[in-house]
């Protein structure tokens, strides 16, 4: 285990309505985030109360999580892009420290 070298990165999690998915992915694509994962149809409780994920035939109104891991220098541009969005729409954004094994996979 000690032979493995971990590299620091920033992990960003964004929760938004499916309808706005493209807004977020556009920001990440422009910043050249090397990838992201999307979790569809999630449930949970927020400012607006409990949000049910049971939407059999509606992706656009269901809540989704977009998770990405980027080098620290990309954090600022991503936040600059998402701030105006979060000022108008509901959603959440979390930034945490993360470590990765292969930094080249996250730095395109």
């Amino acid at each position: 285990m000690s032979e493995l070298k971990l590299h620091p990165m920033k992990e960003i999690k964004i929760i938004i309505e499916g309808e706005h998915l493209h807004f977020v992915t556009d920001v990440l694509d422009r910043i050249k985030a090397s990838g992201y994962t999307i979790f569809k149809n999630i449930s949970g409780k927020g400012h607006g109360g409990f949000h049910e994920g049971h939407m059999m035939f509606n992706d656009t109104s269901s809540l989704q999580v977009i998770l990405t891991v980027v080098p620290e220098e990309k954090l600022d541009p991503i936040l600059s892009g998402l701030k105006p969005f979060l000022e108008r729409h509901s959603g959440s954004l979390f930034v945490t420290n993360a470590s990765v094994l292969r930094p080249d996979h996250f730095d395109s």
Partner: protein
Amino acid sequence: MATLEDTKTETPTESQRIELRSFVNLAGEPVSHYWPMKTFIHHNPLHGLERLHFEDAIKEADRFFRGTGYLQNKENRIYYKQGRITEEALNGALKKISKEATIAFGDEEVSHLEFLKAIIINGTGDVAKDIAATILQSSPNQSEIKGLIEIIQGLNKINEKKESLKDFANRESDDLATKYTLGEWCDQSLGTTVQSQINNEVIKWISGFLDEGHAHWSMPYREKTFYGNWKELALQDNSGSLLGIPDWKNKIRNLSEKPEDAILECMSFMSIPKNLWIDYFSLHLAQLAGWTGFLKWRSEQVDYEWQNAFPIDLVEYMAVRIFYEKELVDLMCRAKLGIPGSYKSIQAYLKSFSMGYGLYKDFQSRGLPEEIEDDMDLSVFNQEPLPINDLNQSASGLSSKWQQIRSRQEVAVQTLVVLHIAKSLDLRVQEIIKSGPAPLEILLGWLEEFPESKHGPVWLKALESSFIKEFIKKFDTNIEKLKKIDASEEKPLESRPLSQSIFCIDVRSECFRRNLEEIGGNETFGFAGFFGVPISFSEFSSDCRTDQCPVLLKPNHVIKEIPRAYQAKAAEEFLEGQQIAKAGHTLLHDLKENVITPYIMVEAIGWFFGFRLFGQTLRPKFFKKAISWIKDRFTIPLSTTLTVDKIQKEEAHEMVASKHRATIYRLLIDQYGPLGSSVSHEQVEHLRKLAMDKVPVDSPEINDLNQLLHWNQADLEQFIKLLRQEHNVNERDTDRQMQKITLTGFTVEEQVNYVEAALRILGFKTFARLILLCGHGSTSDNNPFESALDCGACGGNHGHSNSRALALMANKPDVRALLAEKGLVIPSDTHFIPGQHDTTTDEVELFDLENVPATHRKDLIRLQRDLKEAGEKNSAERLARMPDEPEMIGAFNALSRAKIRSIDWSQVRPEWGLSRHTAFIAGRRALTQGINLEGRTFLHSYDYSKDPTGDYLEIIMTAPMIVGQWINMEHYFSTVDLNAYGAGSKAYHNVVGNVGVMFGTQSDLCVGLPIQTVMDGEKPYHEPMRLFVIIESPREMINTIISRHTILQELTRNQWLHIVSLDPENMDFFLFQYPNNWQAIKSI
């Protein structure tokens, strides 16, 4: 976090660029998506504003799109006279905004409610200021008028409202960059045409760029993205110089490479305050809402080939647009006013010269009063730049006189208004004069609070209330029956029906279902036309896939149409025939579009087109028959099926392996020629495994291969490296491809879930021997809007692929066995048969007849006969609603008449489509059975007693209901504003770029529905109301579901639709009022 305000560097930072992108993308939200016409999607043109209350969204949309959000008052007054809007409903709607106040004119008292009613029915009597005095002079009773004028002159309200020359500048200062772009301000204030110049330029570039194979000569440099392409071509185009933009080519050359930087430069030059940017961009994007809606849609498609090849987005578009604005506004402001074209300089101008500007604006907008004109040299207004200092000076001297004249005119207008109101309220003018100023002051205050522009929402509520109260009465008899059934006083008929048919919820199915049921023995159901199976469908021999589901969903499964196993030879011939047809089509197209060939072609084969022209115009039916006959002779009949089953993992693995082997073969042949082709299959397989790290390097096959190709170890390693890196023969690619392949089809468990969901939502009790799953589509000729008549639940496509897929699943023994384990037992003699209802011709085509068991032959023949009879009746019913159809008395062939409409290329209205729909009912069929709902109601089968947890209702309310609301809002707004939200008349449409239609050669892309869909001549055919969703379910259950979903809360809170519960407890109708109140319909 660095933002635009923090830094003033020359080159913007990445954060600034991204922030700007977000501003532009947010600014695009009010503009609704526009899907390409081949899959027309009914949607709410104000979808981006649904977060606002319906009435506020209409105001906001007026700001951006200059659209009207309500039916004109004169149309509503006609509805009122006709009784479509009842007096009771109008009173109810007015009560909500009326005050408990009365005013007395002598003995006569007028309540606020009476006043509101009088002016909503009779109008306010407002007239233009400059003609009011003339009208008054022609009035017979001059003494009364004089008395009235004297009182009105003394009213505080009149004196408070006195106009000032400064008002123009103050108003425009507030509106600049919030209601109008700088370009629009120039046009309105300086009489320029900046907006149309920008629009014409942008349309020129964007229509060429967005072309999807329609143009014969496609635009070059499109791979450089829209902004790059424009920069390249604008250098070679002199139109900028012709517009008067100085130093055009240098300016283009010096523009930033990145569109974001170009926008930032322009915004900085125009000095628009940053807090106004989003709205400012919205004003720009709303200018050509059709084109921007389309590119907004296109830029969001991940796997859209045109977008991937030629990228474009709102930012690139904005960069081009704003550049033209910056240049043209500067040009105009300098020429007309002698100031730079920026926000700051215009604001400073308005502030410094407000009096002189007022004089200029008054002259320009409505003409100065004659008395003022006499005192002035009017030629100053035509001087360039405007001598504003002189004007300011003149204005100071004329201001008081001007104010007096305008005030006098205002008094004349108000006098006319009072006379009009007096007449409407049956008041004597003498009494009004005698009563003095106090009551009149109040009356004019009331009038000010309720101008004609505020009547729309009241009329709408009154129309809706009139409708729903009348509509629910239709169900009285059926509700009595249901009460007895629910109380077990009456047993419903439980015998096995001769057939069952599941139709789409589409309003057009309602008539067909009714007519089919009336024949006897046929039970029908309503379900979203994609039958709950979201698929990406690939038709046999087609290169494209269609998403067969509502646009709310992205399908994860691919279904392919393939020839049946015994059809191998026919399939080959079919493909060959198709190749020949394709080549012929291309040749003809090339000959038509070439510069030279059309001259010869007209002589040579022009007569052939004449046959079509005359045939299709004069004898469409005969022509169609002749063409069908020819087609039958040449078309190779091909029987197909669908790949509903998932490809097994092993099979998928082998498919990828075989693809990799082919790659290796090709590479060996490329590199070693005939020697490469002599490599054995086993050796190739070994190479593949080697590339995958599946076998050791040292093996007999490899040794033989080394000998054959004269390889040493390094050569082998080099080849393997090439395979892995350049040709993707590696484990990772295998995984990726496996994932793709396994998207095809469904697992048995998935199939069970889809069949179960469909049957349980529909509340199936018994199963007939034959169950028809009937999708729908339409056929019409020369109609770019054809897909608007197709199935909305299937993404604007024909629905047969979904019905075929579900039927295949439901007929499978292993699916049925698993369903039986879940308690859903489908009798073994029940067969599901897929079909499609052509809503224009009323023919029902049945598919996969080979699968119908021989034992069901009689059932099939009977069903086919019944469908034909129902189609005939349905056509007769529909034709009676067509204004251009002659009245048919006695027996006539309705199917034939309907067919002619579908093939007549001059027919602008092949069918009414979904026009005139008003309600969406989710409930038992017993509630609606036998009632003629005139094809105006979406019908979704739903039995609350079989849905104790509300899961099925939740599906209905979060998907089909939403699609219904989109369709409803599309029709609503297309009717209330035919040009801003509708598509205008089809007669002037030109197809552009294979993506949409525009007027003539240059216009915005027409969004919405054409006049011929929503209007009957001058009168609206569609009655614009918000959708009434009537759900037969306990109110508490509906409350619970609404509370779970933000979208439902938003739609109900903001009143984008109405939800009505038919509560099984007392079988009464209740209207939902956010957050959780219910009002009995009878009491509204």
